């Protein structure tokens, strides 16, 4: 989430879900929370019952809209324009929280003279390289003014004296790697050390906010053209609606009130997703809604542990804890160089080396020493984008031999799913671990667009997976909360946890490579890989577990938490576990698998993810464990004014207690606990010493929230409205620059893009999630209780469009995009409406993405229509908007799909054991 990272410092939801109940106004945008996160929606409704206003801005009238006080329909992909309109309203009417903005954001910071805005350059910022389709921030002057040694290359390392505020020279071309920058401070691969915003004190500031190059004035200028009228023209709404939403937000912000913005993949799945989220960050900074109860930006994530899978990334370009994966050409050859490039001298990233060294010790154990640079060289280097999207393109071209699918279903869920299936067909072998024979497991057999099985060469292994209650482990939920789930029973048959597969595969491979002296095999042979149970595991009912070879995952979490290599735990004699990342060392005396999770397992027998204590404390600090350091509201220093006093009694969370000389309040301070509010760092301070007592954003080198972001977003310091890659209209604001200038394309015969508005594809499509189903269906379309609730694939469209195309409600229609065509039942509903955009009528349709060809219910794959394009920051595709044509009727071609599984009304009709007949379930009907 570099969008949040760029603004605040960490790429994660700022507050916790229950905090929505404390909000006075909630703006849902890019989120259909009532449908996608129904239980989370409990909390805004509690706020509404108190009188809070709920606002939904969305292309479709959804179950969320039905509950909100205000609904504004906008065109898909016009979010930045709308948010820009809100920012413009706040600025032109001077409704921003002036004290907050001045003290806690970089509004007063003055940007380099060379910087040019999109207003000056017709839609691009300075520093744009049209050939490489990327920005060079150093050339563009995105840095702060006030460096003592402008442009001087730094030696690297955390000990280097902070010198420059200016952009350093770019260290080579961007790979457009994804993922990183999530933490906001350290730079991403695309720009190793390009963003020399790494020093807090000393940068030029204009406390009057009048300097034409100060961030505040630049912001004002950038959004000057986003007037309600212009925004309405782009979004297809009315100017009054923009004003209404802006007014509600303004009225509910300030000392006494707070508002929250909630988003989900409706924002992220765009080529401008990072910038949409950035815009929300800017708006909340202006309104003073960050780090305060009921404020912030709430990212609603889609999967049980999607936050966890970026924290401990199964991502190609990240190491655990948002450290970049070393790259071949980024000056990452050795460890010190890496730290020099990726660390920051000031702020929390000054500790980068501690994190890396401890990680290497966790992975390579005793083989990693200071002399061999902790085996830094063993880590694989990346030299281009290896994310899912381009990797499947490689696969389709036959460049990949083998692939593992662990609980993921790209044959139905991948963008441009047809290309994904083509990729699977060109593998030598594929391993699928899942509960059911999913679309991806059965791609060689059931895919309607594929050759007969005799024509598919892929060798496929299917491993049956254990269900969540059949294994233990921790999930990290959308509010960064680690929650442990205990194992309730053994999985049936040969079903095993994914941990079992990986652990035992590792053991087998180690055995296969045993004795090898080749350099390439040493990393594997020396990998620490011992997670055996100390005692045979038992189930909660006291019976022994019958599964052999299962790893003890609490040992894995202990390794993630970290331990000392010099001290032992007196009670167990094992290495002492660390109580938090503050204990990490850069001298090889600590090992830690993921620094941000350090503190989750502070002592043997004390797994804090397993904490299930309720207290009177409203933030519930003893329920689970939230990174970082169990802080539930990040940047909560903002909840007090610069003097350390709460802004208001109603919205107090953290304040400075002069007597105790520390920050107190219900939440853990996201701030040095004893740094007083009036502390001002000396000019040459480094690390956390360089963060002043009124600088709440400690992951930022200057400790401030970034209105102007010199980094790490690769597509500009200010969010700018660009049309989606595929749009039926041009860019009203910047006619010469329709799409985002840094979008990456992977065009080919299987992945055609309609770059310009074309009458061939006049309709805008948006994919969406239903409450009753989950993703591409592996976890819902095999479940009859869910299938009966939404039994068939459909497409939502307006009565106007339906009438125009002769489509009947409940009848069939065909949707064609440049990538493919699908058929579905028509759901004609006034919840969708045509919009007037720039003088023309734009029709929008909504397509649920839950169906595929495997399961109890089958239907067209929505992702057969989506394209494979990527945003420059995180390689996010644009699943939420593309153009298409809609016609009545059905597709010619193969016979209708049949379910691969028969309808099973009951999960089981077996009697519940050890239970009298009078207590058996009533519904077995026996």
């Amino acid at each position, binding site marked *: 989430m570099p969008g949040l990272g760029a603004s605040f410092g960490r790429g994660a939801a700022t507050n916790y879900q229950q905090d929505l109940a404390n909000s006075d106004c909630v703006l849902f945008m890019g989120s259909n929370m009532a449908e996608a996160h129904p239980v989370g929606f409990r909390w805004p409704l509690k706020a509404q019952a108190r009188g809070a206003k709920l606002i939904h801005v969305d292309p479709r009238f959804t179950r969320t*809209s*039905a509950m*909100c*006080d*205000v*609904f*504004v*329909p906008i065109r898909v992909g016009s979010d930045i324009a709308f948010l820009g309109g809100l920012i413009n309203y706040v600025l032109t009417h001077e409704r921003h929280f002036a004290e907050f903005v001045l003290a806690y954001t970089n509004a007063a910071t003055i940007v380099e003279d060379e910087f040019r805005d999109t207003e000056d350059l017709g839609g691009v910022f300075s520093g744009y390289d049209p050939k490489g389709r990327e920005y060079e921030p150093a050339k563009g002057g995105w840095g702060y003014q006030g460096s003592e040694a402008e442009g001087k290359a730094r030696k690297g390392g955390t000990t280097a004296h902070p010198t420059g505020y200016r952009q350093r020279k770019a260290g080579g071309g961007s790979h457009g790697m994804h993922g990183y920058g999530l933490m906001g401070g350290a730079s991403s691969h695309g720009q190793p050390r390009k963003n020399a915003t790494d020093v807090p004190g000393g940068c030029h500031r204009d406390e009057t906010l009048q300097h034409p190059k100060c961030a505040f004035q630049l912001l004002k200028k950038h959004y000057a053209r986003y007037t309600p009228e212009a925004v309405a023209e782009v979004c297809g*709404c*009315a*100017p*009054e*609606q923009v004003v*209404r939403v802006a007014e509600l937000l303004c009225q509910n912000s300030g000392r006494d009130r707070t508002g929250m913005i909630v988003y989900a993949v409706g924002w992220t799945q765009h080529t401008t997703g990072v910038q949409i989220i950035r815009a929300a960050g800017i708006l909340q900074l202006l309104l003073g809604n960050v780090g305060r109860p009921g404020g912030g930006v709430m990212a609603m994530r889609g999967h049980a542990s999607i936050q966890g899978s970026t924290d401990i990334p199964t991502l190609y370009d990240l190491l655990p804890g948002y450290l970049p994966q070393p790259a071949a050409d980024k000056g990452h050859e050795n460890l010190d160089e890496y730290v020099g490039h990726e660390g920051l001298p000031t702020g929390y990233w000054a500790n980068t080396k501690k994190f890396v060294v401890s990680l290497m010790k966790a992975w390579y154990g005793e083989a990693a020493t200071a002399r061999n640079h902790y085996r830094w060289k063993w880590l694989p280097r990346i030299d281009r984008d290896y994310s899912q999207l381009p990797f499947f393109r490689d696969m389709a071209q036959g460049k990949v031999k083998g692939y593992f699918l662990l609980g993921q279903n790209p044959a139905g869920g991948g963008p441009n799913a047809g290309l994904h299936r083509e990729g699977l067909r060109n593998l030598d072998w594929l391993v699928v671990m899942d509960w059911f024979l999913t679309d991806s497991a059965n791609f060689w057999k059931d895919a309607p667009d594929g050759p007969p099985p005799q024509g598919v060469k892929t060798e496929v292994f299917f491993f049956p997976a254990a269900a969540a209650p059949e294994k233990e482990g921790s999930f990290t939920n959308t509010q960064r909360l680690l929650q442990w789930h205990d194992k309730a029973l053994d999985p049936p048959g040969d079903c095993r946890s994914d941990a079992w597969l990986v652990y035992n595969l590792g053991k087998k491979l180690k055995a296969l490579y045993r004795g090898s002296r080749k350099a390439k095999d040493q990393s594997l042979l020396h990998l620490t890989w011992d997670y055996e149970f100390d005692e045979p595991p038992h189930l909660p009912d006291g019976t022994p577990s019958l599964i052999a070879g299962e790893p003890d995952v609490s040992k894995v979490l202990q390794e993630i938490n970290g331990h000392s290599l010099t001290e032992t735990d007196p009670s167990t004699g094992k290495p002492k576990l660390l109580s938090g990342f503050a204990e990490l060392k850069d001298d090889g005396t600590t090992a830690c698998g993921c620094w941000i999770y350090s503190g989750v397992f502070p002592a043997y027998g004390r797994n804090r993810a397993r904490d299930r204590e309720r207290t009177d404390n409203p933030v519930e600090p003893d329920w689970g464990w939230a990174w970082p350091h169990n802080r539930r509201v990040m940047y909560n220093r903002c909840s007090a004014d610069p003097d350390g006093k709460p802004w208001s009694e109603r919205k107090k969370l953290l304040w400075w207690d002069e007597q105790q000389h520390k920050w107190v309040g219900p939440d853990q301070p996201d701030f040095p606990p004893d740094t007083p509010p009036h502390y001002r760092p000396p000019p040459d301070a480094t690390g956390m010493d360089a963060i002043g007592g009124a600088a709440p954003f400690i992951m930022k080198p200057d400790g401030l929230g970034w209105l102007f972001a010199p980094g790490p977003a690769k597509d500009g310091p200010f969010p700018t409205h660009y049309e989606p890659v595929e749009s039926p209209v041009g860019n009203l604001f910047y006619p010469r620059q329709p799409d985002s200038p840094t979008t990456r394309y992977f065009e080919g015969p299987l992945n055609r893009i309609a770059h310009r508005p074309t009458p061939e594809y006049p309709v805008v499509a948006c994919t969406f999630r239903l409450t009753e189903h989950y993703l591409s269906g592996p976890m819902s379309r095999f479940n009859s209780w869910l299938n009966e609730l939404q039994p068939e694939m459909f497409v939502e469209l*307006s*009565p*106007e469009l*339906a*009438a*125009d195309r002769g489509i*009947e*409600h*409940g*009848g069939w229609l065909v949707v064609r995009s440049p990538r493919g065509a699908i058929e579905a039942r028509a*759901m*004609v*509903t*006034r919840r969708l*409406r*045509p*919009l*007037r955009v720039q003088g023309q*009528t734009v029709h929008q349709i909504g397509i649920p993405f839950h169906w595929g060809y495997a399961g109890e219910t089958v239907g067209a794959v929505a992702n057969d229509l989506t394209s494979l394009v990527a945003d420059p920051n995180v390689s996010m595709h644009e699943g939420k908007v593309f153009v298409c044509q809609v016609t009545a009727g059905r597709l010619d071609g193969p016979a209708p799909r049949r379910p691969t599984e028969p309808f099973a009304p009951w999960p089981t009709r077996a009697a519940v054991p050890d239970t009298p007949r009078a207590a058996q379930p009533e519904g077995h009907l026996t």
Partner: protein
Amino acid sequence: MPPHDTQTGRPPVGPQVMAEGRGLGFPAAGGAPALSDRTAETVPGYYDVPMLKPPVWKDLISWYFFLGGVSAGAYVTSRLAERYGGPKFRPLATVGTCVAAAAAVPCAPLLIADLGDPKRFHHMLRVFKPESPMNLGAWVLTAYHGAGAAALAREWLRRGKADDEQKNQGFVRNAADGLLVAVADVGGIPLALLLASYTGVLLTGGATPAWCKNAWLPALFSASAVSSGASAVSLAAEALGRVGVDTAADVARGPLHIVQSVAHLAEVITLVGYLSSVRRAVPAAWGTLVAAAGAEVLRRLPAGRRLRPWLDIGSAALSLFGAYHLRSTVVNAGHDSANDPQSRL
């Protein structure tokens, strides 16, 4: 203030298109397939989902209602014929009792076959719960079977004997005969009347508009039971008379005809009353009216001695058909009105 504020602030796009649009909240533009029709919003209601559940009863229930009515009617007619008509009508009483028994025999099996779980038929008698017409009916039917059995037993005991022979058979036999008569008449006749009318009350306990709280139905079913019962007796007497059995058909014809006519009249009056009280006329019910009128007309046609019995048989059959048609029509009307999405309470 409306709870949702969409404030488009501009005129709707293409209002003429919208008017023709089909979708949720749009009336279908005529003659559309089923699914499109489901969106009709011309009446307040929930798509085309009926508010009520249709009865789960099969056609068997109509047969039960019909046969129960015939049995009760035949029973009452024959018992009263003997009691008040004396020895002259004894053969008729015998025939009538047998008809009543024959019609009663299938009743219980028909009821049981209509149960969702027939092997639990005896649960009907688990409680005595007269506030449930069906429970009351189950008890009435059971008791009625007992009374009928008593009547049959009596017929069997005095088979082939003349009246005066029977009078002096000793105390035990006389006492038994008296007891059987008491059970059969004092118990049986009220039970038969209850059997004939409870089915009507049973249907009025249904929530469907065609049945709900309809005071005409029990009276209608009673009248129909007597008319069909008398007709059944007449039919059996005439038919058996044709094959040489002494059924006193000739002497019974007069009184039976009056009973039939009066009962038909009562049936027609109550049926018209019923039809006027249901919200929508039940066209099929006119069939019963026609059948009743036809039966009366048929019987009154001038005919010779040879033809007379055949006309009577025809008339009785028409009347019986009318009675079955009535039950079937009323039951179906309940189904239809429950299935009708327009019938809203």
